[in-house]
């Protein structure tokens, strides 16, 4: 027997998926997350699923995990003490940032935290210019002095970041050598190794964040690995990274900054597979959990990616799936401002105390409470009755805090709450489609996460989208993404020449590709499994927005560059509405991506023999009011079965809604397709 396990830790719940390679069956479960020691929740989840499926820990052949532990550490400012060595006169670059204030109309706003205090940021003479040539020699005596000084401080590691090190890393390497030779045995990190690209502030902060998160995740992965071994599970722990691939826990530690959107990236991977399965080239993933909704995009069958993100107002430069987050989740709190306008979020009741209806002491009305009052959630079925809902109390609190101040009935007020949340998600969908030259009606909307399937049809309707897909086990869909993600590494560095020279590009990309390939071989993968994709970032000379253009030819020749340039003009025209074909185009960054495919899941949808129609109850809909609505057990609906709206589809961990005047069909693959 052999099983694969994927675990996705969210702020509220930890989701677990187990796939049995022999029976091709999928099993899922959910346990509460256990902040701040998230590893307990992960191990609880593993125990729970092993017990439920009566699996021997020795039969686990693959274990993969999505985590936000590193992200939380940064958000909560719990990072270790670090030192910095940089150029003379420039130690404040890290703290000045881009000199803007985070909030324009707030006199009490604050800059993001400085991460390394000024007295631990040291300067040394030595300067490289914009061609990578040395202007002032590195003063090694000065370096020795600052290293001696920093060795006296209570720090865990030293970050080294000097100007133009992405062009010429010699000064950084020599500083690293001096730290290494120092008797204090200090750790260090060079910006030219972590993020060898232009813009000193972004490169430095990315290196600092990587080094800071490293310590946190190292401990976390250590505890987790120990717990896994204790259970007799004898496979290495894989981690999903922001780019939607998996890498080893060791790589996740060394490149810790790449775990920053680990969980949401898994949702995007799963979205890509389901959209392919259902024949949609273009799809939008809407992953709505307890605290927020993450929107991702599939265009022409490919996940839309980015090379930068943000955390706590700090920029991070790392390859990642383009995930756009809105502060609207099931637990988001509805409130009325002093002028009488209704808002939802960004504050969330989280898992504790949670919505009012969880009966754990929550007193503030949430989206989940609104859905309960609209008859959309079944109090008896909710979370398989693991949490007792307090319907009456919810109604009273809702009436008092929302409906009465708005002078509306409880139902109207609940509907307003749901609609306000939908409008903010729809606006984000608009941001990532219309504003980038795409028409949302060309996309299918794929709704998942605990709260996604309830809201998806309404969001789709707001954006004139016609197809909604609710995948199987939507509540644990991201964990499924973790199971199917390919092994993937992204490598890049700045192009180090002024003029475009195909031979040099070919040589440099070739080197990156060969290094990536070798590393895979060392990990035990075979030539046949490894695929290396190559790309270059191009921009109009003098501009600052680059676009990543794939290049397929090997070797890269002048024809390759000409074709890439054409492609660049096309992409620019689509995104920005115009291309400037007469303008010079420059190459800024060289990229390679290595993949090793993970075996697909070949589970077939299974339907329980029970009668699918479970109940009939009144559900409140916009423009209709209360309607008598059929309630189905989602897992008893056979493939090919069609259900007319209004209907509710219930299953463990999620409830989907089929609005009036629409119909839902269970597809061959077992997903629900709602046609609006």
């Amino acid at each position, binding site marked *: 027997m052999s099983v694969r396990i994927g675990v996705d830790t969210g702020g509220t719940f930890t989701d677990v998926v187990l796939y049995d390679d022999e029976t091709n069956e999928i099993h899922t479960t959910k346990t509460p997350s256990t902040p701040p020691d998230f590893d307990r929740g992960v191990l609880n989840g593993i125990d729970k699923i092993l017990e439920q499926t009566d699996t021997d820990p020795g039969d686990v052949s693959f274990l993969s995990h999505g985590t936000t532990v590193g992200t939380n550490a940064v958000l909560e400012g719990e990072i270790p003490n670090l030192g910095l060595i940089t150029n003379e006169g420039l130690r404040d670059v890290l703290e000045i940032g881009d000199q803007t204030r985070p909030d324009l109309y707030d*006199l009490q706003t604050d800059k993001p935290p400085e991460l390394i205090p000024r007295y631990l940021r040291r300067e040394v003479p030595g300067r490289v210019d914009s061609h990578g040539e040395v202007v002032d020699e590195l003063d090694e005596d000065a370096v020795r002095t600052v290293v001696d000084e920093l060795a006296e401080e209570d720090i865990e590691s030293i970050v080294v970041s000097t100007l133009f090190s992405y062009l010429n890393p010699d000064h950084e390497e020599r500083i690293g050598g001096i730290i290494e030779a120092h008797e204090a045995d200090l750790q260090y990190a060079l910006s030219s190794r972590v993020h060898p690209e*232009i813009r000193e502030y972004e490169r430095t902060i990315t290196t600092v964040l990587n080094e800071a998160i490293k310590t946190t995740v190292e401990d976390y992965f250590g505890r987790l690995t120990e717990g896994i071994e204790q259970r007799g599970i004898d496979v290495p722990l894989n981690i999903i990274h922001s780019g939607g691939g998996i890498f080893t826990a060791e790589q996740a530690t060394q490149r810790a900054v790449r775990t920053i959107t680990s969980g949401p990236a898994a949702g995007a991977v799963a979205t890509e597979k389901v959209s392919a399965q259902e024949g949609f080239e273009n799809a939008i993933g809407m992953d709505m959990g307890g605290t927020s909704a993450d929107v991702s995009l599939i265009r022409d069958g490919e996940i839309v990616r980015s090379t930068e993100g943000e955390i706590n107002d700090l920029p991070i430069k790392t390859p990642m799936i383009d995930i756009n987050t809105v502060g609207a989740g099931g637990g988001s709190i509805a409130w009325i401002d002093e002028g009488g*306008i209704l808002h939802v979020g960004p504050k969330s009741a989280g898992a504790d105390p949670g919505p009012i209806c969880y009966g754990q002491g929550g007193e503030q009305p949430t989206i989940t409470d609104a859905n309960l009052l609209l008859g959309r959630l079944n109090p008896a079925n909710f979370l398989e009755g693991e949490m007792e809902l307090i319907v009456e109390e919810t109604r009273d609190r809702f009436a008092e805090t929302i409906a009465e101040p708005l002078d509306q009935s409880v139902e109207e007020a609940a509907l307003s709450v749901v609609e*306000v949340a939908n409008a903010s998600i729809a606006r984000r969908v608009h941001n990532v489609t219309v504003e980038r030259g795409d028409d949302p009606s060309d996309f299918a909307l794929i709704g998942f996460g605990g709260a996604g399937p309830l809201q998806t049809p309404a969001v789709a309707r707001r954006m004139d989208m016609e197809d909604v897909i609710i995948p199987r086990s939507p509540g644990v869909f991201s964990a499924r993404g973790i199971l199917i993600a390919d092994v993937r590494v992204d490598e890049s560095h700045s192009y180090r020449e002024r003029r475009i020279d195909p031979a040099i590009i070919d040589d440099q990309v070739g080197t990156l590709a060969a290094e990536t390939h070798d590393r895979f071989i060392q990990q035990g993968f075979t030539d046949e499994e490894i695929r290396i994709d190559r790309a270059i970032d191009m921009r109009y000379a003098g501009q600052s927005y680059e676009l990543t253009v794939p290049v397929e030819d090997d070797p890269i020749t002048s024809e390759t560059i000409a074709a890439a340039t054409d492609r660049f003009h096309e992409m620019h025209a689509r995104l920005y509405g115009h291309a400037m074909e007469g303008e010079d185009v420059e190459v800024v960054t060289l990229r390679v991506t290595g993949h090793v495919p993970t075996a697909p899941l070949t589970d077939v949808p299974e339907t329980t023999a029970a009668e699918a129609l479970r109940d009939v109850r009144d559900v409140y809909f916009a423009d209709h009011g209360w309607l008598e609505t059929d309630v189905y057990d989602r897992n008893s609906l056979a493939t090919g079965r069609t259900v007319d709206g209004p209907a509710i589809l219930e299953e463990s961990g999620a409830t989907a809604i089929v609005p009036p005047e629409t119909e839902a069909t269970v597809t061959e693959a077992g997903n629900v397709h709602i046609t609006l």
Partner: protein
Amino acid sequence: MVSPGKLEIFRHSLKGIVEEMGVTLQRTAYSTNIKIRRDHTCALFDSELRHIAQHDIAPQHIGSLVSVVPRNMRDRDDLEPGDGILINDPYKGAVHLPDVMLICPLFHDGEIIGYAANSAHHVDIGGPTPGGIPTDSTDLYGEGVIMPGVRAVEDWEYDEEMLGLITRNVRSPEMRVGDYRAQLGANRIGEERFGELYEEYGADALTEYLDELIDYTERLVRSNIQELPDGVYDASDYMDGDGINDEELLVTLTIEIDDDEMTLDFTGTAAENEGPLNCTPAMAFAGTMAVVMSLLGGDLPKNEGFYRPFEIITPKGSMVNPTDDRPVAAGWEIAIRAGDLVTKAMADVLPEETIAATKGIICNIAYGGRDPRSDDDEYVYYETVGGGYGGRATKDGMDGVQAHYQNTANSPIEELETEIPLYVRRYEYIQDSEGAGRQRGGLGIRRDMEFYDHRSSFTVLSDRTKNQPWGLFGGHAARAANYVINPDDDPEVVSSKSTTKLDPNDVASVQTPGGGGYGDPLERPPEDVLEDVVNEKVSVEKAESEYGVAVDLEDRSVDEAATRELREEVDR
């Protein structure tokens, strides 16, 4: 009556339109100043010329759009679908010449249903010096191309001859053309989206929602003003000089609160100047309202309703309402100081919300020359430098940031050095530049640039070298600005409005002011003073003389007995 939930959804839709306009403008523009520094903004007006929505990134531009659009569109009866009006005329409601606005009427079935408008800071607008900020012109004609409100766009296409006339008068015309086209693209998106919203809601409902939204903002702003005690509050300060005459110039602001209304009156401010230190009423409006908005409702939807309870008085012939085509290039320096004056005047009324003086300057820096690395190609660059933020009731002022309506980013050193033949030798906080206080002010920034192997021209159009940013409630004033050539070997201090010819390898040093302190520095917790001393933000000497704290730097500790003694002594 519109339901509150529906109104919130409507607000999302409206905001979505102006944000999409803003993103379009930013992404399609050519110049760094718009693409990276985001020196632009977009807004929508309804058919009654009421301001209904704005993209919240650069309030200075909003101030100008709010004055220009109604004033110049009201009496035009010749507008056709697809028209676009270009305007930058300070004497028709606009600001300084580099901020160029494009206004497009939006039609539906032959009727005007609204206006899409945007404003963007162009890096060059002609005139004698590169960068659009001449320091010594004595009339508007010496500052560049004046556009009094001309139909430059028909049927959503620029009149190429008109555009050719404009761009023939500016430097780097290709870049500029790209920026003008980006401005048109933004309004085009506004037309499309606002048209969709109009169809979705219908004319009547749209008006009802807009009335409701504007009333909502007005209601809240009025109730916030009402909570303040009625009375007259004033503040004043002096500017350095106008670029021609080296004489200090008074700016004075009197705020009168009467029930739910507020008057901001500049009466008493110095007369208009011969040099470019003149500020149009639109600039004064933008400078004061940005701070008023922060104090009275930073989260509210910004629209016509916000402005209704306010009257702004700018006496004709004063330097906040110049006449006779006086030059205005440095006007934003007065406007940002007016923002500081709002916080000062309101200090006793809103002591918890207000802040001490910020850096109080825009700090316009422009430089140009011929690049020795590439066949002596001509280059021009424009940037602004952050400084200290004022101390606050419970928080220190931020170190090294932009202030009030100004929030433009810096240029990354590696990008700058790649593009321009210079080395940034220092980009750092200035020790002891903060105003001491229980909550100290923020530190100013020093930016030293070495222009290697060529002669260059270095322009500062700024202020604040003569008067320091003030502290509040016993907080001390901060270090003033300093502009110096070759600061380390043979320092030559230059004026705050000057153009200097630099020799090869000269270093130009821009040293911006700190922010004022809040509250008595003797009440600052000694451990906070210690932290600043350890971080070399405050010197051991200043810790002693102004904070009354004796720090043992070796030991990184506070000598408590000595501190007690010092504090008693300084207090006396």
